[in-house]
């Protein structure tokens, strides 16, 4: 029997606000445990939440960028459960009236286009961090992340494989970054995904029992988790066993998922409207204001790069897939006005060096305007392409200014004919054997002599000029 997979995604993203969702503590990542904490986010008796307006703005931005309807009248609800990372023993979230509903994100996998529906986007607060203490074999609780604002973006079960999930996540990540809503640093947990997965015989209308895998935090791990869970469920069905509806934890190191303990985990969250917060009313004017402030989104940008710059689609996909690469592209383009060259540099040297140094796009630190300058320097014959690559390595690692660097390291191309002539004459003088061979008609020695010249000129000369002068000098010997 053949099976097909039905996948849905719940993505949690930490918002790029300065303060937490319900108090004025900093959201800055890191810091000593419990140093970004106040009486509100640590859930002390008598404290009350006050909503950060920026969170609502970011939620509307995200909703508009993902084609959602903005809920004009929305509220917060309490989700009640006991866990040490949740100091109030309830999470303030939105169940009944989430801020965004009924959107979609369009993806393309292997040339096939597909629209993934977004069921809803809601605002909520993040939980704290639990640290295992091996000395005392206990758990230490740090509330620094407690109350950091989150958006939960819930898709419909519209995916049929891991590739689609990755394409969706890539697109979503780009949208969140473009709109400034989140930095999406997966390694810091600011983008995490829960995967709902079920399998069913091909063509069957009835959905299988689904499981949920929580908090997977890299694209590769998500792809592996999907494959692993799919295989596990198919195996169960083939063995005539049943898939149990449960929450599972994906252990990426072991490549297997485990059921989370459910003894005290009755999934009865007793949601009810949060009485300490008042409803949010969003009018047309507010939505329009946010819409006006939205930057060009990945899709529009891609279309423009294709039509305006005539760049290859593959390159455009890569560049527009990352807010940081777009920034490099646009800043460099502004200086040199040569889209093709900039694109080539990004696809070539920038990504090569990033990959070799394991640098994430957001951590690339050179001034992109300097890349534009470098491209102009090549175009104007100040340096040759090979030298430019060397210079760029320095730019990439130390953010050097190319003109200055070239000047200081004497890397300018020698465009002065007399200087080249001098070197050529020297080479001819010091290689009598080769000249003899040349005179006997061995044209191959040209290449050797050319190499000697370039070596003496330390690669700074324009090869065309050197060839021309060398040919002239040699022809005099004939």
């Amino acid at each position: 029997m053949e099976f097909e997979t039905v996948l849905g995604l719940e993505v949690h993203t930490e918002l790029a606000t300065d303060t937490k969702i319900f108090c004025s503590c900093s959201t800055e990542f890191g810091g000593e445990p419990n140093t970004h904490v106040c009486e509100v986010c640590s859930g002390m008796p008598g404290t009350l939440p006050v909503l950060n307006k920026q969170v609502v703005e970011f939620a509307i931005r995200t909703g508009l960028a993902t084609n959602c309807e903005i809920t004009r009248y929305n509220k917060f609800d309490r989700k009640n459960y006991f866990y040490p990372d949740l100091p109030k023993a309830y999470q303030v979230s939105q169940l009944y009236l989430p801020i965004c509903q009924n959107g979609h994100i369009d993806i393309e996998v292997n040339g096939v286009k597909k629209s993934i529906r977004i069921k809803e986007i809601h605002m909520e607060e993040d939980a704290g961090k639990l640290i295992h203490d091996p000395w005392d074999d206990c758990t230490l609780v740090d509330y620094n992340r407690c109350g950091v604002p989150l958006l939960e973006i819930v898709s419909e079960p519209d995916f049929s494989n891991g590739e689609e999930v990755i394409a969706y996540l890539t697109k979503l990540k780009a949208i969140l970054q473009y709109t400034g809503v989140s930095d999406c640093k997966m390694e810091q947990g600011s983008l995490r995904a829960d995967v709902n997965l079920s399998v069913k015989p091909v063509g069957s209308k009835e959905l299988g029992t689904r499981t949920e895998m929580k908090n997977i935090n890299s694209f590769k791990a998500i792809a592996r988790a999907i494959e692993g869970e799919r295989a596990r469920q198919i195996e169960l069905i083939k063995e005539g066993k049943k898939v149990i509806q449960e929450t599972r934890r994906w252990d990426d190191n072991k490549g297997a998922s485990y059921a989370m303990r459910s003894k005290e985990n009755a999934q009865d969250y007793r949601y009810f409207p949060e009485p300490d917060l008042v409803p949010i009313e969003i009018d047309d004017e507010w939505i329009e204001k946010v819409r006006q402030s939205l930057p060009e989104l990945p899709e529009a940008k891609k279309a423009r790069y294709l039509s305006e710059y005539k760049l290859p689609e593959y390159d455009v996909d890569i560049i527009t897939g990352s807010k940081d690469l777009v920034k490099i592209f646009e800043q460099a383009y502004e200086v040199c006005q040569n889209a093709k060259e900039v694109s080539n540099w990004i696809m070539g040297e920038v990504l090569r060096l990033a990959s070799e140094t394991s640098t994430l796009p957001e951590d690339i630190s050179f001034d992109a305007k300097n890349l534009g300058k470098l491209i102009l320097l090549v175009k104007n014959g100040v340096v040759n392409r090979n030298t430019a690559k060397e210079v760029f390595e320095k730019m990439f690692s130390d953010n050097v200014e190319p003109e200055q660097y070239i000047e200081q390291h004497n890397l300018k191309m020698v465009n002065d004919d007399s200087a080249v002539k001098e070197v050529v004459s020297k080479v001819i003088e010091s290689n009598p054997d080769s000249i003899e061979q040349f005179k006997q008609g061995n044209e191959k020695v040209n290449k050797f002599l050319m190499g000697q010249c370039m070596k003496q000129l330390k690669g700074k000369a324009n090869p065309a000029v050197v060839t021309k002068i060398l040919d002239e000098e040699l022809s005099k010997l004939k």
Partner: protein
Amino acid sequence: MDIFQLSALELGKKIKSKEIGVVEATKAVLENIEKKEPEYHCYVTVCKKEALKQAEEVQKKIDSGEYQSPLAGVPAGVKDNMCTKGMQTSCSSRMLETFKPVYTATAVQKLQNVGAVILGKTNMDEFAMGSTSETSYFGITKNPWNTEHVPGGSSGGSAAAVAAKEAFYTLGSDTGGSIRQPASYCGITGLKPTYGTVSRYGLIAYASSLDQIGPMAKNVEDVTEIYKTIAGHDNKDSTSVNHPSPSFTLCEDMKGKKIGIPIEFFGEGIDADVKEAIYKAAKVYESLGAEVEEISMPTIKYAIPAYYIAACAEASSNLSRYDGIKYGHCAEKYDDLVDLYYQSRSEGFGSEVKKRILIGAFVLSSGYYDAYYNKALQVKALIKQSYDDAFGKYDFLLTPTAPTTAPKIGESFKDTLKMYLSDICTVSVNLAGLPGLVVPCGLDKTGLPIGLQLIGKAFNEETLLNAGFAFQKATDFHTVSPETIAK
């Protein structure tokens, strides 16, 4: 001069004119507390040293002209569910026996900002759940009018402290009648302001959508001044209403006022003495030129179930944070994390609190939410509507505060449901978010006080306080105290 004959404002005046020093007044109250506490037990914590230190500082600031408030230097008590920085705040629960807040509630801070001297924290029903103050982990408070009787609750300590002259005024909190009913039982004046008028920041939550802090004192003038001091917008409380702070002068003119008496407040179980006293009070208003009419509000009887559903539901969530980890009682023995929760909570909470948490968990649980919690919120809307209708015709409503006077200690918990039903006169006011004022209006045959409840339009405390003021100008029930009876 017997300073205990003075009201809070009268004492404030004498402090201002330097007839009495703040330290002197504070010492006098502290001595009285020392004398009477063994009998009444109004306080969970008396902060003698801190109070005297405060008194000295306040005196200096009065002398320098920094404190201008008519309440400056007047010693007060605060219910033990309002956070006071560094001062034990227990909610009369074993759960918070050792809890020291790191911040002060806005309402308390506002009093301190004008020079109040805080004497200590008054006893209450555990986590404000109860109407007798018998559920306190630290022992019951006795009614100064008759120590065989309860002072009411949950702000029983705050009410008894005023009645016993162990404070010139106190703050209480009212979720379903917890200021008004003990004020009635102890023969004092108490105001539950409109929901959102006084900041709840720092008030340890029982039921967030119903809780409201308010003043308890000897008369309407005191209550008005305290109300003006603590009311006002607080940007730390999202449900705090952004209205200008109240500033009005009391006016006793009742001519042409229209007053409604909802007959549903005089249902089954109403004491004949109480009913008579309320109708006599109505006559007083008529004699002052007001028009009084009986009206019917049939939805009122549904207020009790709606209230208990809403309050227990919110409480079950609000009290989940007491898990033995961050603060509060932590069990000594437990097997693992889950057991730590069970042990700490089961040991830390008393039986009434547990019962309400369980009811709350039930009405919110999967499959029952619509039938109970959502239904209760719908009934809440209906009750609000029936009040809105009434206020279309009447300036305020006049009702009893409780069907009876203070019951005997131990009597109420024989039948919990019956005890809940005795909240009939007060809970609907919280559901509709309205202000309610209680003023003494007589004594029953056994000499226990009866309180008259006036219910007003939202954000219209002024009308209520004027009506209470007019009543106290026309009567002297508020000047009667346990001592005068004894004499």
